[in-house]
């Protein structure tokens, strides 16, 4: 069994009366592609926001590679090895594509970011658009830029929040290849609604409903789980 | 006169300050709350109200009460009109962008000051009070007009409160404050609401100035202190909370009045400004406010 790179115990976050995340235990194995699925409002984005540090934890603990990061600030977690790409694309719209990625590279390495920036852009297929303002890119390309920035951080854990939303079929294929190339050196946790992508990419799947973890297992196990079927997949499997 | 009497005198003075401050700050609270606009020129609306009052009273012949009543009616409307114009010509075109509106209102501040300086002059001029009854208390005589100011402010604020909570216009304003987009989706003309709120805010400040100008004098730089004090009041009371603004105005007006009588007014102001900075840093929602800035 591969080692655990990121784990959470009893993670809880309420917003007023709403229990967004309610006592979730979670283990992410090093080198795997782990998908997080669940109906809308299940708490997926809140959960990864807790992991990445964007939202403070109310109770519970998080450990990265054995180190407790529960109280660590978001920017420090990035430096420790967690990268997060936004559900609603958040690039530097008024800066060139090159600068966007260079800022990520610069965060990780001293010295001239040029070589690594070009490499990251080539990896996602945006090398010829370096001078273009990020805000003028097509939606699909902006998503790719986000991924490029995440990869340029050379994280231990790359968290992707609904990365294929709004992408065309061809773009999704590129994206899937990209994600496969990231592991097993790094680990990927992705929130996805596109079941084809999930079943195709994921080594393991965790299902969240109403802020709680319903089940964790391989795609086959999840498909066969009657509770999951009832809560989420309906009877079209 | 014993300490107790001095304290009562200081408290009455404080109440007058609080009354004027409450009106001015209520205007700012509305603008800040509904439009999310920092109007650095708010103090200038105050000043324009005072200057307009002087013009009206000097033009209207007869007993001072007549001129004063005319000023009370005309000055706030005039200033409200200027504000509506400023909103239409400037703020609306900037789409109420936070940074841009701040810079634009600073520009308006200078323009209004210049207008007053050029048309009214650099001197401070008094306006005669409508009546000069002295109310004789056991320990000292107190200006009846000042007491009337307190009463007038209370009446106006009560009317404002009722207007906001009981009338449709008030409901529309509060809806726009809570969620501009949803309000627009419900068919509310947010552009007109904004112009109206901006005008109302300016009008309240001008009204406060008309009330205070027989006590203080009208001067083209007199907007500076009310601006800072009303900001302090609105922040401590909590953004978007009229009740908080009123309570804060009471506290600040009273303490300013009392401290000024017993200690140096400059020291009081230093403490007040530092206090509001710290409140904003550590308790940004103020005393009553719910939403964060």
């Amino acid at each position, binding site marked *: 069994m591969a080692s655990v790179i990121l784990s959470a115990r009893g993670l809880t976050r309420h917003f007023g009366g709403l229990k967004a995340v309610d006592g979730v235990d979670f283990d992410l194995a090093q080198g795997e592609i782990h998908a997080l699925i669940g109906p809308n409002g299940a708490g997926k984005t809140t959960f990864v926001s807790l992991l990445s540090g964007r939202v403070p934890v109310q109770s519970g603990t998080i450990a990265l590679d054995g180190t407790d990061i529960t109280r660590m600030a978001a920017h420090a977690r990035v430096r420790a090895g967690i990268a997060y790409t936004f559900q609603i694309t958040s690039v530097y719209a008024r800066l060139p594509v090159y600068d966007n990625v260079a800022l990520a590279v610069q965060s990780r390495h001293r010295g001239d970011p*040029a070589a690594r920036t070009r490499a990251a852009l080539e990896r996602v297929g945006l090398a010829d658009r370096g001078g273009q303002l990020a805000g003028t890119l097509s939606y699909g390309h902006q998503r790719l830029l986000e991924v490029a920035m995440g990869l340029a951080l050379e994280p231990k854990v790359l968290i992707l929040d609904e990365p294929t939303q709004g992408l065309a079929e061809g773009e999704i294929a590129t994206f899937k290849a990209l994600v496969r190339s990231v592991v097993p050196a790094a680990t990927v946790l992705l929130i996805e609604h596109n079941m084809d992508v999930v079943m195709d990419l994921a080594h393991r799947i965790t299902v969240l409903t109403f802020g709680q973890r319903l089940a964790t297992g391989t795609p086959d196990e999840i498909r066969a789980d009657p509770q999951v079927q009832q809560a989420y997949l309906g009877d079209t499997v | 006169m014993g300490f107790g009497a001095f304290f009562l005198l200081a408290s009455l003075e404080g109440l007058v300050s609080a009354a004027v401050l409450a009106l001015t700050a209520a205007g700012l609270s509305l603008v800040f709350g509904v439009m999310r606009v920092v109007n650095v020129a708010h103090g200038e609306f105050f000043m324009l109200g005072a200057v307009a009052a002087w013009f009206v009273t000097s033009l209207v012949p007869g007993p001072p009460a007549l001129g004063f009543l005319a000023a009370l009616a005309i000055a706030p409307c005039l200033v409200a009109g200027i504000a509506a114009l400023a909103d239409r010509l400037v703020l609306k*075109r900037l789409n109420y962008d936070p940074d841009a509106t701040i810079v634009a209102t600073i520009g308006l501040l200078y323009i209004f000051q210049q207008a007053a300086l050029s048309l009214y002059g650099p001197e401070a001029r008094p306006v005669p009070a409508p009546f000069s009854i002295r109310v004789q208390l056991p320990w000292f005589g107190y200006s009846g007009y000042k007491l009337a100011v307190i009463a007038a402010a209370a009446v106006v604020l009560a009317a404002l409160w009722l207007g906001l909570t009981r009338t449709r216009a008030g409901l529309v304003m509060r809806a726009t404050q809570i969620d501009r987009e949803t309000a627009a989706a419900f068919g509310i003309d947010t552009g007109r609401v904004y112009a109206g709120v901006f005008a109302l805010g300016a009008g309240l400040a001008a009204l406060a100035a008309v009330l205070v100008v027989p006590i203080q004098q009208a001067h083209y730089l007199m907007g500076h202190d009310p601006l800072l004090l009303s900001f302090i009041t609105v922040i401590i009371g909590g953004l978007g909370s009229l009740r908080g603004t009123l309570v804060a105005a009471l506290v600040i007006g009273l303490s300013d009045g009392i401290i000024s009588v017993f200690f140096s007014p400059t020291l009081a102001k230093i403490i007040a400004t530092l206090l509001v*900075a710290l409140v904003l840093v550590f308790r940004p929602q103020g005393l009553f406010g719910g939403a964060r800035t």
Partner: protein
Amino acid sequence: MKTLALPLALPLALPLALLALLAAATLLLPPYHEGNLARIMLLATYAMGYNIAFGYTGLLSLGHALFFGAGMYAAGMAAEYGGVPAAPGLALGLLGGGAMALAVGLLALRTSGVSFLIVTMMFAQAGYLTILYNTDVTRGEEGIVLAAALRRIAGFDLAQDDTRYLAAFAIFAVGLIAQALLVRSRFGRVMVAMRENEERSRMLGYSPYRVKLIALVISGLYAGVAGAAYALLFGYMGAGFAAIQNSIAPLLWVLLGGAGTVLGPFLGTAAMFYLTDLAASLTTATLLVTGVALLLLVLFAPKGILGTIRDRWAPWLP
């Protein structure tokens, strides 16, 4: 903003050209304009500091007069009451501005946006009132005129036109080159990133609080040395320099010249200086000039002169 891939020489070329022009000016200009330019260069230094906080990092502050005043009074009071000569006086001013910016920043940067604006405005107002409160020592609004004997650097009399110009030039030159290098540096790019998208920057591993604090302290250093130099070179310090009008001034200059450009602060300061000078000779309505300038800028040219030029025609402009 241009791509990071440009060589360093180009962004430095224009500032150096300006410095060459200004150096030549001392030989060509009559004393009246020499004095004006000296003033402009010091105020432009103040504006450059403000530009670092506002133009590059996106911190809209209305409290910079506090940092300028801290520098002015640190140097001025030390000279007046302690006989401290000009060179250490400038150092005191530098430190005073920086220290004040650090103190304010530690608290104020816990807020953002409108709250930050008001907090900085309040701290500056408290500083101004403190100067007035201690009128017995500071002489408040009236201010203190510094004796010429106190204003000497390395044996040279700062009250003398040429020496004064040279001193102002030296300070401005250091500030200009430092700004040009800063905005091209790693940290400069992070400042811009923070301005453009703070949340994104946070999730790239940059600490917003830390970056903004450093930017604010640097801008405080600029303001402090400008204030100290102003007191020592022109022999006067007064509470007016710590009042809110002096917090609005650098905002106006930077907006006019172009926020987020290297030469914008100087251009804006110079333009505004001569504009008000011109207006004062034609009319008494000088406040109007400032007010209308601000309105026109924010309505029609929010990027300022150089900012608009860079946007439309010259993306390589630093």
